[in-house]
């Protein structure tokens, strides 16, 4: 495979070159030779890490591994298998009742929902990054570069991430392909590890990416000497010191003498009001404010300010030391978000466990999505220190070995469990599911061979189950589904996308509709057997239906969809992509009759 697509020799521009050469000539006293910089263009060599994707783990269809290498689709537009597609789009998933509320204090500049890390062959000083987007572009919100070379044998030390470009999520008017090439910042170290962060919330359908091109120069560009680095006030480059400077110069304050309380109006405001004002600050601001005066230091260190803590926006700089300095503020912590943090050695078991020991007793929600530093020992610490834990998210922790999940069974109060793309095994799931109320379970797993067993166990033990995600659970059959719907009658959200072994001819979908009157979300993506009778049964039995995805079936007609739309007034999302009987004429007719419904019809041009 060739990752260099061209080597361009580019001589420096005349005026600057002349200035340099004349200087050199003066210095060396010799005839000067114009130096030449070589620009190197590379496609991604390997996809190292990502938060989610649409396809199956061992597949090359709609999976993140398609982002490496040369483009397969560009400049064509369309919904093709050879592109990289993330798991979700729009706000449909946030609208679900089972979605967790957003964390407070999320900084305004942080919009990222998903990420992907790419390694290139040669480290260069980047001059341009181009992303070839082939469907519904506009999702990229941040591009970062890392100082660590992922191909080096030595373990990562002093890993630095620089933001090359940051922007708002956009919505491009047409779903056509485009080459996205933002103006990137020049950085002071060579890099061959890029990270793209995306936010698809404004898009009408899944965004699809085909390739990423990194342009750069091998030698450090002379421009750096002439151009002042842009100092970004919002840059978090010194947040580490802020998070660590808890003590500061105020320790000397309490010396018994009469202290001047010169805090102005702050002395007149009630304690609770100052607390309320501070609750609107972002975490770095809160830490900076703690250094300003004694009164505000006391306020900013008050554990009541730290009932919710999201460290995800600061994933690039979070370390054991940071956690250590926040420990003293954590005893009332209820919701903790450590998603995306700690990779490449930034967090270790020591830092993690000491922090959890400080905040564990009160902890109710723990988000650990894409935390690759987690080991079995870490999960053991979680189970020991967080007895009251109700929500646990281990999405994409695909390096945890199956034994690690046995500790989950000790968490007796679990209501929400996300195991998307993890290696949990059947036996562990069985023991970890005890009777819960409102147990929401995301079970898109890698290693489970027999989902019928899981389904029947859920039916037996989790009778109040509200939301279940069985996306791509390949071996689920109508027997398991029948048991599930008979046992879990409170189900409101059920994702059965890409479960090919479910056959409508067994009546399983009609049985489902009749048994789940509270159903609000049903995904039957790529189940080619869904037919008119199933839609009609949904129309008569599930009046609360809001989201329905029946992508790829040939057996559903416009007439039954009309009945469904008439009977389900709350329906807002209906995906009929690749349904051969539902052509553009039918889509337009239905859109006209039911303007509140987002009818999705994807295409391959």
């Amino acid at each position: 495979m060739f990752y260099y697509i061209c080597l361009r020799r580019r001589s420096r521009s005349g005026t600057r070159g002349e200035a340099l050469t004349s200087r050199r000539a003066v210095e060396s006293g010799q005839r000067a030779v114009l130096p030449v910089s070589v620009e190197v263009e590379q496609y991604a060599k390997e996809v190292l890490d990502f938060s989610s994707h649409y396809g199956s783990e061992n597949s090359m269809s709609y999976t993140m591994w398609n982002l490496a290498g040369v483009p397969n689709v560009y400049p064509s537009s369309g919904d093709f298998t050879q592109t990289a597609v993330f798991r979700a789009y729009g706000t449909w998933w946030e609208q679900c009742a089972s979605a967790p509320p957003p964390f407070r204090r999320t900084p305004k500049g942080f919009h990222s929902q998903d990420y992907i890390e790419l390694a290139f062959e040669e480290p260069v000083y980047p001059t341009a990054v181009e992303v070839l987007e082939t469907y519904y572009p506009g999702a990229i919100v941040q591009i970062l570069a890392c100082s660590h070379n992922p191909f080096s044998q030595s373990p990562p030390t002093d890993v630095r991430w620089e933001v090359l470009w940051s922007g708002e999520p956009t919505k491009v008017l047409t779903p056509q392909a485009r080459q996205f090439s933002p103006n990137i910042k020049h950085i002071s170290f060579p890099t061959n590890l890029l990270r793209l962060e995306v936010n698809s919330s404004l898009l009408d359908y899944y965004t699809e990416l085909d390739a990423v091109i990194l342009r750069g120069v091998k030698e450090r560009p002379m421009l750096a000497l002439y151009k002042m680095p842009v100092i970004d006030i919002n840059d978090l480059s010194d947040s580490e010191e802020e998070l660590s400077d808890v003590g500061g110069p105020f320790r000397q304050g309490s010396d018994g003498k009469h202290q001047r309380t010169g805090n102005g109006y702050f002395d007149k405001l009630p304690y609770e009001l100052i607390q309320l004002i501070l609750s609107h600050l972002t975490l770095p601001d809160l830490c900076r404010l703690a250094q300003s005066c004694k009164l505000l230091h006391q306020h900013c260190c008050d554990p009541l300010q730290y009932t919710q803590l999201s460290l995800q926006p600061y994933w690039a700089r979070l370390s054991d030391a940071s956690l250590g300095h926040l420990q003293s503020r954590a005893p009332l912590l209820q919701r903790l978000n450590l998603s995306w943090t700690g990779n490449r050695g930034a967090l270790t078991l020591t830092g993690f466990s000491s922090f959890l020991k400080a905040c564990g007793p009160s902890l109710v929600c723990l988000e650990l999505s894409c935390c690759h530093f987690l080991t079995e020992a870490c999960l053991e610490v979680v189970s020991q220190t967080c007895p009251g834990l109700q929500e646990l998210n281990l999405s994409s922790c695909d390096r945890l070995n199956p034994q690690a999940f046995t500790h989950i069974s000790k968490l007796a109060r679990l209501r929400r469990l996300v195991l998307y793309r993890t290696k949990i095994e059947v036996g562990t799931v069985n023991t970890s599911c005890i009777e819960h109320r409102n147990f929401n379970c995301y079970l898109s797993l890698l290693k489970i061979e027999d989902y019928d067993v899981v389904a029947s166990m859920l039916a037996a033990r989790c009778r109040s189950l509200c939301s279940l995600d069985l996306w791509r659970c390949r071996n689920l059959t109508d027997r398991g589904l029948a048991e599930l719907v008979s046992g879990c009658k409170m189900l409101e959200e059920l994702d059965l996308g890409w479960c090919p072994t479910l056959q409508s001819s067994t009546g399983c979908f009609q049985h489902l509709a009749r048994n789940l009157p509270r159903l609000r979300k049903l995904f039957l993506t790529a189940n080619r057997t869904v037919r008119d009778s199933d839609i009609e049964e949904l129309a008569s039995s599930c009046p609360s239906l809001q989201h329905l995805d029946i992508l790829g079936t040939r057996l559903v007609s416009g007439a039954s969809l009309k009945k469904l739309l008439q009977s389900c007034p709350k329906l807002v999302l209906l995906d009929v992509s690749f349904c051969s009987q539902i052509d553009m004429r039918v889509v337009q007719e239905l859109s006209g009759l039911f303007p509140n419904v987002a009818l999705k019809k994807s295409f391959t041009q």
Partner: protein
Amino acid sequence: MLSVLSYGRLVARAVIGGLSQTDSRDYSLVTASCGFGKDFRKGILKKGMCYGDDACFIARHRSADVLGVADGVGGWRDYGVDPSQFSGTLMKTCERLVKEGRFVPSNPVGVLTTSYYELLQNKVPLLGSSTACIVVLDRQSHQLHTANLGDSGFLVVRGGEVVHRSDEQQHYFNTPFQLSIAPPEAEGAVLSDSPDAADSSSFDVQLGDIILTATDGLFDNMPDYMILQELKKLKNTNYESIQQTARSIAEQAHVLAYDPNYMSPFAQFACDNGLNVRGGKPDDITVLLSIVAEYTD
């Protein structure tokens, strides 16, 4: 002081070592393709490596050269399904698998299995069926690994003789083994063989070996001796001569297919089974002609 025996042993070892120098060069396949769709006479041409309902691919990877042919089953046309979609997508998927290195050279059946699985991962509801034949040359080990499902196949010709060939897989007359994706209402009524049912083989090749991979449109119309006659005209290993020979084989088969009096292998087989027929068999013809040569980047 060496004894006579040990000295003799040393000499023997040196001589034998010199004689059995194994060839450490990497091999490659220089391949040309040619074909005619059944509707060629009506002027209907398909894009790319598709000839009528047949499809083929040629792919290179660092470790191996891979070829494949697939014969789309025409009967789907009666049900409103374009038979070339399945065979074409199957071959394109195999090509992509090879280019991305998601295969093991010694396991060509794995290429078929993975490719078939990938077809099911497509959002687009594909329907149809086809035969498939995959030929992999492992550059370093000089072995030809093959997988064949159905009545397409390959020949390996050395010194003017067929030294290795594939076997046809038929359920019954004119019904070869086939990979298929059926519409849900027809499942059970449609023949669908698993990719694991493919025949596989491994064979040591030498420089200069000729490998002919083709769909049944060729083998049903041209007996071995005619094919070998054409192959004798192949003088050197450059691409142009291979292309010319492939073309002449395909053209000849195409002409014979429409000859009503010619006793084609297909007609012969039918007669052997009690059906009194004569003439060629109009069908899509796909020919991939390769020569084993030294690997040059």
